[in-house]
């Protein structure tokens, strides 16, 4: 089952094992420049607020009620990353899609797990996902644009802007294979409140947002060393996460959306940390050629003659913090601004 607790999706499988609990958060972050360079990991700026779509049934599109699930607010050109945390270290296979395009393989959404190509990530081991996996060790940051404007991976690959949002499906390890261990040092997503409020980029008042391809970032998605049969496919939960344009979040919920995170330039100029994550004993997946072939939001904006992405100047992260797998807990991916 899935519960909403303190702006986190909590997947639990009490029928499989009491330890089988996975906490998923959607972290606000700064958008890295889309300038041909490859950047380290930007910080977490705290979770996006999450709400049940059912609680606002009269004000959300009918399609959202059909999909069920939850919603969160994003400004146009805002970025996010997804954090995973299994408090007991219980292993999970997690499928992530945006607009029902698998973020790891670039293929259209299908139920179930596959290893050729691997269409999921494994946690513990994979503490976060920041974007579409385009090649080994490299992703393209998830950046929100209005659904229907033609920027998302979904629209580029299918020619239709039908779904938008994010989709997650979680599979626990089969109970008989679980060996309780001291919990792994999953970096804790601590954060500080954003101090910089910027007027949001212009957005139409249509609620649906979709994730396009932002700047390039160093991030590996690791190969699963288990066999597909090790995952308990009889017990799985999935959730549709709708991305509501922040400009209409207030109309829908009566609550203010969070302020916009600082720009990459502001953040870097303040000497605040960027991050690198290493897990030396793991093999990175090769990434998806289909995703690699897609155009970035910056390229598409230029083609369409739309205003270029705001605040896209290159930055030079000098304060780089290295996070290692299998070291003492308490590592944080945060930047106090």
């Amino acid at each position, binding site marked *: *089952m899935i*519960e*909403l607790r303190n702006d986190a999706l909590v997947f639990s499988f009490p029928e499989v094992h009491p330890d089988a609990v996975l906490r998923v958060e959607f972290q606000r972050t700064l958008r890295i420049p889309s300038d041909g360079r490859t950047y380290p990991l930007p910080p977490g700026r705290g979770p996006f607020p999450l709400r*049940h779509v*059912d609680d606002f049934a009269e004000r959300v599109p009918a399609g959202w009620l059909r999909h*069920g*699930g*939850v919603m969160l607010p994003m400004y146009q050109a805002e970025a996010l990353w997804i954090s995973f945390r299994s408090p007991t270290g219980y292993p999970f296979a997690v499928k992530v899609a945006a607009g029902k395009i698998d973020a790891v393989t670039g293929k259209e*959404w299908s139920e179930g797990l596959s290893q050729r190509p691997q269409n999921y990530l494994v946690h513990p081991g994979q503490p976060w996902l920041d974007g579409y996996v385009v090649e080994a060790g490299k992703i393209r940051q998830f950046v929100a644009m209005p659904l229907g404007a033609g920027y998302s991976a979904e629209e580029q690959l299918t020619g239709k802007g039908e779904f938008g949002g994010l989709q997650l499906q979680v599979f626990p390890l089969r109970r008989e294979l679980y060996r309780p261990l001291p919990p792994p040092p999953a970096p804790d997503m601590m954060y500080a409140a954003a101090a910089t409020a910027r007027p949001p980029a212009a957005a139409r008042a249509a609620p649906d947002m979709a994730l396009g391809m932002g700047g390039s970032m160093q991030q590996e998605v690791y190969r699963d060393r288990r066999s597909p049969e090790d995952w308990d496919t009889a017990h799985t939960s999935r959730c*549709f996460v709708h991305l509501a344009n922040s400009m209409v979040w207030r109309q829908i919920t009566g609550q203010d959306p969070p302020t916009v995170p600082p720009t990459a330039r502001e953040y870097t100029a303040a000497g605040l940390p960027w991050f690198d994550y290493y897990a030396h004993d793991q093999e990175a997946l090769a990434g998806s050629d289909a995703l690699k072939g897609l155009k970035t939001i910056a390229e598409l904006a230029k083609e369409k003659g739309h205003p270029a992405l705001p605040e896209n100047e290159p930055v030079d992260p000098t304060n780089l913090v290295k996070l290692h797998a299998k070291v003492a807990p308490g590592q944080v991916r945060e930047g106090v601004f």
Partner: protein
Amino acid sequence: MNELGDYLRGRRLARYETDPAYSVNRVAGRVGVTPSYLSQVERGLTRSPPSEETLVALADDLGVDRDLVLALAGKIASDLRQTITRRPTLFAELLRELRDAPDHAVLRLVREVRDGDW
């Protein structure tokens, strides 16, 4: 029957044993009422219970549960009142149904995120 007054007086005196700041005079001063009014509340001599604001201030000053103090005064917090009046039948039924349920059963009452048709 003076449940509210007895409870408040009992809690205040328990604290007063070790801390003189819990005299009638000083508690009344902190929560913004006269000492004679607080004394009347404790002895159940007021015609009507204190306002929600005063009860909440008293509960906070004595370090006790606001909702309990409000309930002893025959009141419920405004946010709970709004919640109930929005769907009175549903919440009244829910509370009656849970009246005798053990704590762990109440805590098991969780809401799941609904999955739909993608």
